[in-house]
């Protein structure tokens, strides 16, 4: 198993280098460049000389491939993701500072998705083709179809109009008041987990229906087990293996959703950092965030692969 993990981690290196190359280049393809933005913001005349000075100061006068190798060299040699073009702060520090909130939001959304999706999926499968099954399935489609940013906006706007209440704009840090903090995070987490829970529910339902047809379920019933024990002990574990895969596949989708919701609910996480950086064309931050997210997604999928061993005794890591 140790050897398996080491090999998997080593295999990440080419993946991440390839990903970083794509990110590095595409970021520079965003229309409008950072020099124009800076010059116009500071109201400096865009003459050729001040342009060239600024480019040289930021290291943007070099060809893109030189910039890339400098950037890559800094990561490999001193673990630095460079400095923000605007604030001159360390990108790595900025990201590490913001990362926990985004991670927290994603984790809460994941927990919401599993807590809601798995039991409802099981219920829906066990009561296949009853009214309860149709109702839960219809809600799942609804939850999938409503975009998170739209629901988020409604949650911001309508309670304010009706009851004069809206979610706090300033996020209380966890260390200051954990309860208040969790309460504030709960709404975006629910919205973020909503679509995911629908996907989990549908997959759990399908897999349960499949597993309940297996011969070993009949064996369990023939032993005299109650339906409930049969489901919990014999069916669920076998049905959940693909759900675990789904968690790995959905991780980047969750991050995408988090970016939007952090913006709507003003949560100072990585998503907000990314959005600000994109609007300012702060290349090192954008590439840095994408690289970190890439690493996170890849590691989550490694964890997912390792967790198969817990669910399925046939899995061996070699």
């Amino acid at each position, binding site marked *: 198993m140790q050897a398996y993990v080491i090999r998997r981690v080593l295999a990440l290196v080419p993946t991440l280098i390839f990903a970083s190359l794509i990110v590095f280049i595409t970021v520079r393809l965003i229309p409008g460049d950072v020099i124009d933005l800076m010059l116009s913001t500071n109201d400096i005349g865009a003459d050729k000389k001040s342009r060239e000075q600024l480019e040289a100061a930021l290291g943007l006068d070099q060809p893109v491939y030189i910039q890339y190798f400098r950037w890559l060299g800094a990561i490999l040699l001193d673990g630095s993701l460079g400095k923000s073009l605007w604030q001159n702060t360390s990108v790595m520090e900025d990201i590490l500072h913001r990362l926990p909130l985004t991670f927290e939001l994603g984790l809460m959304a994941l927990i919401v998705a599993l807590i809601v999706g798995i039991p409802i999926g099981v219920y829906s499968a066990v009561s296949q083709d009853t009214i309860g099954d149709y109702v839960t399935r219809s809600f799942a489609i609804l939850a999938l179809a409503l975009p998170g940013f739209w629901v988020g906006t409604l949650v911001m706007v309508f309670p304010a109009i009706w009851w004069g209440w809206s979610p706090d704009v300033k996020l209380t840090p966890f260390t200051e008041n954990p309860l208040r903090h969790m309460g504030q995070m709960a709404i975006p987490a629910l919205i973020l987990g909503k679509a995911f829970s629908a996907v989990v529910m549908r997959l759990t339902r399908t897999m349960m229906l499949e597993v309940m047809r297996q*011969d*070993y379920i009949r*064996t369990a019933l*023939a032993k*005299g*087990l109650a339906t409930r024990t049969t489901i919990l002990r014999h069916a669920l574990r076998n049905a959940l293996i693909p759900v675990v895969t789904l968690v790995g596949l959905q991780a980047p989708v969750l991050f995408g959703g988090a970016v939007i919701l952090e913006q709507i609910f003003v949560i100072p996480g990585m998503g907000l950092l990314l959005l600000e950086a994109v609007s300012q064309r702060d290349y090192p931050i954008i590439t840095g965030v994408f690289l970190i997210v890439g690493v996170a997604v890849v590691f989550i999928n490694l964890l997912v692969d390792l967790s198969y061993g817990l669910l*399925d*005794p046939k899995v061996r890591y070699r």
Partner: protein
Amino acid sequence: MRTGARLMGAPLLSVRNLSTEFRTERGTVKAVDDVSFDLAAGETLAIVGESGSGKSVTAMSILRLIPDPPGRISAGEVVFDGRDLLKLEDHEIRAIRGNRIAMIFQEPMSSLNPSLTIGLQIAEPINLHRKTPWAAAMDMAVELLSRVRLPDARSRVKSYPHQFSGGMRQRAMIAMALACQPQLIIADEPTTALDVTVQAQILALLKEVTRAANSALILITHDLGVVARYADRVCVMYGGRIIEAGPAREIYARPRHPYTIGLMASVPRLDQATGTRLVPIDGQPPNLANLPPGCAFAPRCRNAVDRCRVERPALVRSGPEHLSACHFHDQLSA
């Protein structure tokens, strides 16, 4: 000729006029139609027939394991130890399943849960019905595994089904069935999925352990060779009905239904002269959704006459212990 227990009193299991239907897109199919038989304590009954004859559905109906929908037991009684199983509450039938009547299924590959250890699956009914704590139940699982002669039982309880061969899994299934010392074990084609060399071992083991535990055994099979060696009595099923029943010896010596005669002619026998040709039964097994009005076997029967095609023969006495559903049972010879 009957075993002592039956002479002394009520049979252990008495199936009366059992009918089981399945609702399909092409209408209701009667998979089991008016089936009756008795089983004495400690006796071995073989139910013989080809696929679709209703033998497995009969077995599943006894423990009410027919999935509903689409299946439904539409009529009959299954009296086990004085109580009609078909009238029991859910929790009452659950207390019988795996406890007083245990089942062994055909596919040992898929009938064991792939993600639970063999030991846990054997200990499960003990924990459930005897309220034995898990640790003690696991010890009993070890004991049961050695009783079905699985070598190295102590370490094998921690194995998963995929680490077992087919024969080992079926031994584990037998251990599971024995767990609560049931009075009746129903084995639904227990050896069909196994290698020929393993089949004989498993059947001998099954016979031996049921005899040691004084359990009755219903052996569902399509293999007449199995019947000859292991069964006391035989029911032959065709098209969802019993078409011949009697002591195994008697059926072998004097079959009284053309289908049974055909079955015997199509099975190789060691006492036949070498070079004797096997005679297959012509035609196809009947379509249960569209049975002929007369005898279900008439379309394939060499001796069928007009009466066979319009009048369904009743299961009537053809000897002291012998029942046959053929209009001409007393004129047949093998």
